């Protein structure tokens, strides 16, 4: 199917560009003074984190519109976005500890940002579990939409959690009210890698969307064949 191929291409391009970003990051961007090389993981960690949260917002928005229009495409998009969001969330949850070990001296602590990110991941897992636990497509879509909207409303609480708890994790640097405080070339590299992650997000979502569309077609065909 065409869409699936398009999605694969976008993903492939994204992955190549990501490699490029790291060449740039390692070779041409200054080494952060206090953290050394470990800071390089920043370019993986932060864009992934931003997309992990944005994907949930997009799930929620698609869900709201789904409840009004009952358009199955929106449901399919929400499912695809949740799967990709779960992957990005997993990336954050692996890069974070890898970064944390040299900086904090521990893989994991139970501070608010880390815990809430873990729960964002579990929210994705729950969303996908719920989808697999309901077999009837219309019911599945409605239940998933309800959970998706609730999940969307949960994201601001997670994002702001650093302000509410004493935490080891850095305060927002880029996505904060006021001006970003980041040296120019780091900011540039960061912006590029955010762009690449956007590409990856789109590529993955297009693929998952196409796959679930194909599966539905197959189910429908099986039904006709049987009757």
């Amino acid at each position, binding site marked *: 199917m065409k869409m699936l191929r398009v999605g694969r291409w976008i993903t492939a391009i994204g992955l190549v560009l990501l490699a490029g970003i790291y060449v740039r990051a390692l070779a041409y961007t200054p080494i952060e003074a206090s953290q050394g090389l470990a800071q390089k993981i920043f370019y993986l960690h932060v864009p992934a984190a931003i997309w992990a949260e944005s994907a949930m917002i997009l799930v929620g928005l698609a869900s709201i519109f789904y409840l009004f229009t009952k358009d199955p495409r929106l449901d399919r998009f929400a499912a695809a976005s949740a799967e990709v969001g779960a992957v990005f969330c997993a990336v954050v949850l692996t890069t974070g500890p890898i970064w944390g070990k040299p900086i904090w001296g521990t893989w994991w602590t139970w501070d608010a940002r880390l815990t809430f990110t873990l729960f964002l991941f579990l929210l994705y897992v729950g969303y996908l579990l*719920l989808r697999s636990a309901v077999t009837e497509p219309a019911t599945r879509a409605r239940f998933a939409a309800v959970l998706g909207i609730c999940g969307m409303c949960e994201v601001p609480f997670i994002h702001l959690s650093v302000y509410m708890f004493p935490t080891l994790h850095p305060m927002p640097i880029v996505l904060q009210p006021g001006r970003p405080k980041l040296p120019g070339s780091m900011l540039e590299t960061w912006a590029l890698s955010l762009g690449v992650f956007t590409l990856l997000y789109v590529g993955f979502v297009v693929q998952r969307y196409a796959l679930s569309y194909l599966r539905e077609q197959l189910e429908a065909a099986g039904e006709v064949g049987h009757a």
Partner: protein
Amino acid sequence: MRSPDLLRHAWAVAAKDLLVEFRSRTAILSVAVFVVLVLVVFNSARDPTAVSNVDLAPSILWVTFTFAAILALNRAFQIELENQALEGLLLAPIDRSSIYLGKLIANLVFVATIELIGVPLLALFFNVQVLPFLLPLIAVIALATVGFVAVGTLFSAMTVRTRFAELLLPVLLLPFMIPPLSWAVLATGRLLAGRPLSETLGWLNMLAVYDFVFVVLAVLLFPATVNE
């Protein structure tokens, strides 16, 4: 639909639920003993020399309430499944939101009963002072309970019709319970440690915002969980 109707029907649903619960005369007794046992488990399941009481009290209080709430939530829709009474409710010419509100009221009464029994027991078993901070403590408990019971009632309406509802419900629910729960634990900890009230006001505000967002959301979204 006019809103007095909404409330009247919600109350009818809640009153019926509470009557069903009340019919089994063992209910209150069981809940009481249940709380006692959970507290005892926590006490005897830890090495008494290693950890001090006051530090653990808030966590144990809230873990107890959480589990009790999950049990209660599961029951709420189980009652309706027994003889397909849920279909009857869905056929009735009432606003679907009133089914949700009714279930919410019944669950709140149920969980509040547990908490009413749990707090004095906790004070007794862990030898912590609660009387001086009673009002703010009640405020914390009430706000946190409303938040997670509201979301929980919404989700239990969905999971009850899936297999493994008992396991799926906590999976879906706990990400939403963690924020109010952690605020509540921190606030309770401050209160029991005798810190000034102003330190907990921030948590109370957060709890109130959370409650507001999710109660409104739940009332709006509930119809989507029951329309077939």
